């Protein structure tokens, strides 16, 4: 089979995960007083689930009248964009792993993409658009299996995932009106269920990785939640101001409480691998600082469905 078709086939588990989530996004956008076109535009142009949900969540929380451009709404827009950008900074890691393991690049020496056999700048720019967590999950698995991933395979994978995301958004936005009231509210609540599921998925993924710790993830989520609640409820801040601060502070607190001061040898992370497991040998042994929970060898291999990349 052609690489593109194989990529498309590999996108099926991703697509079936994206579709209902995208429907929820479409519904949430409509219930915020925005149009089907607004919902579709977001999925077509951004293609980043968590950031899109964050954006619509902050948009609703800001409580501005939909469509009005005032000084206040410009501030809100800037806040949403900054928060979304912070959230998507993690794609820098994923893109760099994929970019350096594209078939045809001189992937070993850190100067990929410039060799004559590699994919051109246009192909690379298109591939970059579709790097989501789930696409990275599958691509990372291919890289682990075969050393590289073919650009056409990636394109197939991304086209499959993107179609489900955009299609589900449109279906959700259009079906908003015909659904009963309770079901619409329930689908709005699914937003929080989705966030909780994504958090649980992160914890599971960290638990699987050798030497990885779930403590910092729990601390990051918990402290960000507490800070956000304190700023919003205690100090009366609006969501746009409180959220980015809570997010950054939560991550920093988790780093500090886990004792992130690493030895100099661990300053740079190897490309392509599973970074936290390597590098600082000997350092992990006895430093039981704070909530760190090293995974016991008995529980590192939960079950076989974990490689499907849809978590």
């Amino acid at each position: 089979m052609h690489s593109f078709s194989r990529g498309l086939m590999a996108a099926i588990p991703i697509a079936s995960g994206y579709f209902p989530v995208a429907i929820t996004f479409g519904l949430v956008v409509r219930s915020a007083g925005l149009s089907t076109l607004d919902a579709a535009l977001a999925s077509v142009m951004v293609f980043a689930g968590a950031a899109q949900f964050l954006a619509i969540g902050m948009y609703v929380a800001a409580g501005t009248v939909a469509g009005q451009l005032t000084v206040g709404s410009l501030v809100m827009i800037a806040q949403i964009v900054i928060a979304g950008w912070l959230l998507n900074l993690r794609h820098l890691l994923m893109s760099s792993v994929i970019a350096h393991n594209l078939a045809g690049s001189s992937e070993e020496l850190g100067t990929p993409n410039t060799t004559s056999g590699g994919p051109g700048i246009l192909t690379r720019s298109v591939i970059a658009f579709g790097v989501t967590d789930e696409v990275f999950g599958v691509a990372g698995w291919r890289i682990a299996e075969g050393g590289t991933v073919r650009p056409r395979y990636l394109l197939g994978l991304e086209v499959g995932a993107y179609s489900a995301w955009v299609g589900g958004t449109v279906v959700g936005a259009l079906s908003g009106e015909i659904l009963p009231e309770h079901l619409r509210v329930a689908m709005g609540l699914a937003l929080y269920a989705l966030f909780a599921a994504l958090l649980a998925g992160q914890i599971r993924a960290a638990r699987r990785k050798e030497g990885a710790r779930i403590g910092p993830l729990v601390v990051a989520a918990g402290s960000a939640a507490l800070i956000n609640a304190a700023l919003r409820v205690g100090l009366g801040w609006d969501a746009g101001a409180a959220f980015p601060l809570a997010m950054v502070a939560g991550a920093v607190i988790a780093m500090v409480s886990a004792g992130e001061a690493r030895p100099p040898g661990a300053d740079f992370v190897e490309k392509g691998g599973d970074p936290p497991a390597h590098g600082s040998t000997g350092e992990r042994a006895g430093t039981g600082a704070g909530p760190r929970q090293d995974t016991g060898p008995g529980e590192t291999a939960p079950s076989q469905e974990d490689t499907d990349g849809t978590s």
Partner: protein
Amino acid sequence: MVHPDWLLVVVGLLVGTYVVRAIPFWFSGIDRLPAPVHRFLELVPAAALGALIIPDVLFQATPVVAISAPVLAFVLTMRGFNLTVVVIVSILSAWAGLALLG
């Protein structure tokens, strides 16, 4: 129709997200991030998800149902159910909860 304020949000997100995703494909020197930066970027999503859930979930119309949905989703995902199943089960159980209590 497109609402201009939302369009600006979307364009802003497009630029911010795409640039972050594309930089490693455009410039080869970005493959080595300092370890603390790497670690920070790994922790930001968890922090964001925590702050996305709390306190907003407490402000919903039927808080018992609103709080149950993420708790259920968290437990199901930790037990290994995939995202599709979790989202559908959460929607259906929230729907049932609202029908009973709402």
